[in-house]
């Protein structure tokens, strides 16, 4: 299995509080991604990173920010959590983006509940 860990694995928080999720990889892959998974929607991309300090928005980026100060860590922050952000969050990594045959490897997920 690819060396990807997510922390915390479960979190319950209240509306309006800030929340930070961490993704840590030991594969030295360049690309990292944050997705959220909701029933009936599959996984949707929130933000991604193509290198240290290089990030870009995905399709559902509103209310989220990210940071990547080191190759191995990609942080997802909810500045002021809302109930609509209750979801399961997955981190993924890939070594390349230009290759047509590249694979994304997924972490175990973080279940976030906003009350």
């Amino acid at each position, binding site marked *: 299995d690819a060396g990807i860990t997510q922390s915390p694995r479960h979190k319950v928080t209240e509306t309006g509080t800030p929340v930070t999720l961490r993704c840590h990889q030991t594969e030295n892959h360049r*690309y990292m991604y944050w997705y959220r998974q909701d029933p*009936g929607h*599959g996984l949707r*991309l929130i933000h991604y990173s193509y290198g240290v300090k290089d990030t870009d928005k995905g399709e559902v980026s509103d209310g989220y920010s990210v940071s990547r100060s080191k190759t191995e860590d990609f942080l997802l922050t909810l500045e002021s959590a809302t109930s609509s952000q209750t979801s399961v969050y997955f981190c993924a990594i890939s070594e390349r*983006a230009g290759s*047509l*045959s590249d*694979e994304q490897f*997924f972490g175990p997920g973080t279940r976030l509940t906003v009350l």
Partner: protein
Amino acid sequence: AQSVTQLDSHVSVSEGTPVLLRCNYSSSYSPSLFWYVQHPNKGLQLLLKYTSAATLVKGINGFEAEFKKSETSFHLTKPSAHMSDAAEYFCVVRGGYGNKLVFGAGTILRVKS
């Protein structure tokens, strides 16, 4: 823009019978397509991928998928279902720069004994 549609939200089969999970895609250029599987309370695992080589792609655990450009389809099949195949399956298309992936809504496969 790239998109995928999984035609069935739930599929139920008996153990030992064939599995067919249907996926149609939309892409403005030659697509890269994937099937991922997610077992309950687990992360996602790549089953197989199509990247413009052979149109019939073989994956892990006896699964395969056929790319049909004329039908814009990439259906997943397995000749004989096993109880351990019960999971949620996602059809995925690569969505442009940065290796971004666009997921279908998922198909939950139930295998009856």
